[in-house]
């Protein structure tokens, strides 16, 4: 069992400020705690409440003593928000060791019952933070109801950071990934190898995305697609052959990925993310690629980053044609959704009338269509392997850019490919005030009642 702490950029920045301070600094981190079906624990950081200056009794570069006024108020806030509280303190100095000292262990023993009691969660956690040339290093543990170490911090903002705990074993296969490592370095390669990536849609774009990710080093996949492979799919789906026609697409892709490299593990779900149980599996992913064409699915994916701090890269290809059936353009879109950037709804990337039509019963849809109250669902759309592959490669490059940060800032959160025009343009869109993507609406941990704030038909 292990725990990952997911943070937004501002919360991560707050920890870095603590870690790089020349004197020991304390704070209480409030977090929403969730245990997944496989036992993995995810903490969603909500707030970092600093110890007020007057609560420090001793505060030097190697020691810290505070009165209970330093954290009592924060515990009350945690209780009011239904969150757990973690005691955070820093070990100052570049490359200092963020491991609890004997004294720290005694403090943890004292704080554990108090924190559990005051937050009414019977849960305690601690985090010791330091830094290595400005990059956060840490160790941490949860104890109480759930006891496990915090093995990873995941940050989703402009940049995506996946940092293993100080003592965690890391390191990718240096020989295998020699060429990647020459490009991105060791750290990024181990980050990639440690990711769990969900791919929604195992068709042309999804399979091209998954193949590239596997060759880059991703070893853990969640593959979701309701369909079986058709004859015409083999013109685009990587890894598919005529012998695969009729098999579930997730199996065709899963088998293929597992053949590409040793140690690849695929969780295959033949189903739709319009089903709650299927959509919930996305919570466990570090990054989600949206590679479907449906609007109803996008409606749901669009909410994920803001409720669960999981970044989503949503992509699509459009080949509109004129009245004579001739191609009038080839467009690709890669939109990167993360806390701090606008969702698909605010960007106007979802056709809501079609989303409704896609979820209606066939009978009701027919009736409304006949009365002129509903748009007709589009038939089979054109699709071409070169275009789906181009968009997939652009999407995977976006992931690399977010991890490595080789691009310009501010980072565009959407790329539009005018393929017919041989042009690529980026744009940036901020969250709309009051919308679920607006950080001020604080959605994390608020959907115990209705998953992602929505009703689910099944």
């Amino acid at each position, binding site marked *: 069992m292990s725990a990952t702490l997911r943070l937004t950029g501002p919360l991560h920045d707050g920890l870095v400020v603590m870690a790089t301070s020349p004197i020991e600094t304390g704070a209480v981190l409030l977090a929403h705690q969730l245990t997944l079906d496989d036992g993995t624990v995810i903490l969603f950081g909500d707030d970092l409440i600093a110890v007020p200056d007057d609560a420090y009794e001793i505060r030097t570069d190697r020691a810290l003593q505070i009165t209970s006024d330093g954290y009592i108020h924060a515990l009350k806030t945690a209780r009011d928000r239904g969150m757990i509280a973690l005691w955070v303190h820093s070990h100052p100095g570049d490359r200092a060791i963020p491991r609890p000292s004997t004294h720290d262990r005694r403090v943890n023993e004292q704080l554990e019952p108090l924190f559990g009691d005051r937050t009414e969660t019977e849960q305690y956690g601690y985090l010791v933070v330091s830094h290595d040339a400005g990059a956060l290093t840490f160790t941490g543990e949860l104890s109480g109801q759930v006891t496990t170490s915090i093995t990873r911090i995941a940050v989703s903002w402009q940049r995506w950071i996946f940092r293993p705990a100080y003592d965690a074993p890391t390191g990718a296969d240096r020989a295998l990934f020699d060429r990647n490592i020459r490009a991105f370095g060791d750290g990024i390669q181990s980050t990639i190898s440690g990711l769990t990536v969900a791919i929604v849609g195992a068709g042309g774009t999804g399979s091209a995305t998954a193949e590239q990710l596997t060759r880059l080093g991703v070893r853990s996949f969640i593959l979701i697609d309701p369909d079986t492979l058709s004859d015409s799919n083999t013109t685009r789906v990587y890894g598919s052959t005529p012998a695969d026609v009729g098999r579930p697409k997730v199996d065709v892709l899963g088998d293929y990925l597992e053949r590409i490299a040793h140690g690849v593990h695929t969780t295959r779900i033949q189903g739709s993310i319009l089903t709650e149980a299927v959509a919930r599996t996305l919570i466990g992913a570090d990054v989600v690629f949206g590679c479907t064409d449906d609007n109803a699915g996008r409606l749901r994916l669009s909410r994920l980053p803001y409720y669960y701090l999981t970044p989503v890269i949503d992509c699509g290809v459009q080949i509109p044609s004129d009245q004579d059936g001739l191609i009038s353009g080839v467009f690709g879109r890669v939109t990167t959704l993360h806390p701090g950037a606008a969702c698909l709804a605010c960007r106007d990337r979802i056709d809501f009338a079609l989303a409704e039509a896609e979820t209606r019963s066939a009978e009701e849809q027919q009736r409304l269509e006949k009365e002129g109250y509903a748009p007709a669902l589009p038939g089979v759309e054109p699709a071409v392997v070169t275009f789906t592959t181009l968009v997939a490669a652009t999407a995977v490059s976006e992931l690399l850019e977010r991890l490595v940060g080789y691009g310009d800032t501010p980072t565009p959160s959407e790329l539009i490919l005018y393929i017919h025009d041989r042009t690529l343009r980026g744009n940036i869109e901020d969250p709309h005030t009051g919308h*679920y993507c607006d950080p001020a609406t604080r959605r994390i941990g608020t959907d115990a009642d209705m998953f992602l704030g929505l009703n689910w038909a099944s």
Partner: protein
Amino acid sequence: MKLPEPDREFLDRSGITYRVFDDDTGMLNVELIDFPLPPGLSASTASVLFRLSASYPDTPPDMWWVIPHLTRIGGGVIPATEIIETHDGRSWQRWSRHLDPSAWRSGIDSLESYVRLLRTELGSAAA
């Protein structure tokens, strides 16, 4: 299926009695009971039915249904109310009112906004 909390809060706060029930079409039905009507219509209160899809509140409710079937006291037809539909085993007068897609702020608007539209439409039907 259930009504999102902001909607429950709004209905309670506004003193609107309501009932929520599922049907076999995957829609969530919300029935406003004894909803007061403006003067000028053939009844002073009515049951008003909203049917919410699984995409609500990203997408707005579409149309509403009323019992009893309403007419204008002063005569004249209320537009787009001539269709009768059966829901929950009862026969409802359908009010085909469709929002301009841009009129619904997806993810922000709620039943509070939709009840405002309902009131406006009932008012202009009565006038």
